């Protein structure tokens, strides 16, 4: 197998020595349409969820710390504080299932990509 070293004019080239595993031309691989598509799809999928769960998580201490709106009764004497916290549990389980479902489709994309560009 031919060992392809990085070209001198690639933007990421630092003056120091870069090590590769000598297997594949990774610079070319990450420029393929399939890889770019995969990364783009993942980013589009992940970003809103990651932002949403951090926001929802950090809203809890902000709401309990600076306001008293969660101290009202929701169901019987279970206050909104508890409802919000249970909601976080439901959120974790729902997002986990959404992730798993989506990740299976990414697995297929990865298979296709490896099949086309790596395992010739």
């Amino acid at each position, binding site marked *: 197998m031919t060992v392809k070293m990085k070209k001198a004019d690639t933007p990421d080239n630092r003056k120091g*020595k870069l090590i590769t595993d000598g297997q594949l031309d990774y610079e070319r691989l990450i420029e393929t349409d399939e890889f770019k598509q995969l990364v783009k799809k993942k980013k589009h999928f992940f970003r809103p969820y990651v932002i949403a769960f951090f926001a929802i*998580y*950090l809203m809890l*201490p902000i709401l309990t710390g600076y306001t008293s709106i969660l101290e009202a009764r929701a169901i019987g004497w279970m206050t909104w504080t508890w409802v919000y916290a249970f909601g976080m549990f439901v959120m*974790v389980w729902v*997002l986990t299932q959404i992730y798993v479902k989506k990740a299976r489709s990414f697995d297929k994309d*990865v298979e296709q990509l490896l099949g086309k560009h790596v395992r010739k």
Partner: protein
Amino acid sequence: MSFWSYSIFFAVIALTLYITYWAAKQTRTASEFYTAGGSLTGWQNGMAIAGDYLSAASFLGIAGAISLNGFDGFYYSVGWLTAYLVVLFLIAEPLRNLGKYTMADMIGSRFGAKKVRGAAALNTITIVLFYMLAQLVGAGALIKLLFGIEYWISVLIVGVMMLVYVLFGGMTATSWVQIIKAILLMVGTIVISFLVLMKFNFNFVGMFDVMRTATVHGESYLHSGVVYKDPIGLISVLLALVLGTAGLPHILMRFFTVKDAKTARSSVVYAVWIIGIFYVMTIFLGFGAAKFVGRDAIIAENSAGNMAAPMLAGVLGGDPLESFVAAVAFATILAVVAGLVLSGASAIAHDIYAEIIKKGKVTEKQQVFAARMAAIGVSFVSILLALGSEKLNVAFLVSLAFCIAASANVPTILFTIYWRKFNTTGAVASMLTGLITALVLVAVSPNIINPVEGAAFFVGEPLFPFVNPAIISIPAGFIAAVVGTYIGAKRHEAAEVAYAEVRFKAETGYRGAEG
């Protein structure tokens, strides 16, 4: 101490020792010792993650915190569960794709420099020691209470047991001890929760009405703010909880015990369900203890509330159930400390000895020997530290470990996978800044310097107001990563792996020649 207690206790110990004997026969290579040969299935590893994660802090600590402080105790449950979304969405699969045995391996897959691996190993060892200290102090108190033996003997017993698991059985034994312990813990918690619900006539909502008048806090027991009066301090704690998990070396190491990223993913999914169901039940443990054991009795036994769950079991199910729960708590501590010893030992033997000192030129036999020696060393040091730490607050030690993990490891892990410009200088700067900031801020916090006499080591005004420094130290870790990267960019960055290769492998799981 009754016949029941002794028999249940020794049954649990005998079972775990038998597993170790069985595992010892199949632990020959370094890969088997560190990662059980990567042979665990998704559900097995999911159970083991749960077993590793639901430590004394979760089982004894949260139950006690909810019983004494109401909703403020439940923050731990919310934070520690949500943390798995961070692990699942951002860390688990790329980590499995890039690493081999340890967290430093994964960072080292991009940065060849010894100092990067050394810094990662240093963080691992620091986190492991703090975390282990908490578990050993808890174990000492538990056995001392149950059998009435001296604290130092209790610590020695636990210390020797954990060493036996790791030394002879390696990761295979440790994983199976964790799996069995997770099952026992779930069974025990489900039984107690059922009994508590029965006492409340299976009226979940009505339970809150009862709790409104059941404690000294009155209605505020149902709200946030009993402990965390300062919102910024609360946010700081919650940040450490949610980001810390993604940087805990013994949890990250669990992703190397499966064969590929798909299995790593499925193990997180199993773990999320088991851990989530457990944390929901902490409400029953906490409420039940507050109502049926009572604040005074809980505090009389242990001022931090650590004995609330076993005491509740005793009230509801008598001696057999109390003994069972105590034995489960003991198994919990053993499983967690064994996992910790293993990650500490692998940082010393694999990262420092094999990769840095010997530059990767070691035989299988030398690797396993070094790992066993390191396990003895880690155990010895942690036992010594634990012997002198009887009076330390267990929950504080664990939250400190989470804070160091979040500040020192998480920025580097994330940037290694997702940031093209990130370099050796940035990685080292981030890891050391996160570690040092967290340690220094804690040293001048109310944990160490407190105006209340007897609450900490020194009497006086703390220089830093918050118990947990995460709100400063996590941003410090991220900022140091960025600043270090831009300062280092002008220099020669020898021995760095092309980012394209890291990126490609992280996304696809392609492993080069072996894959």
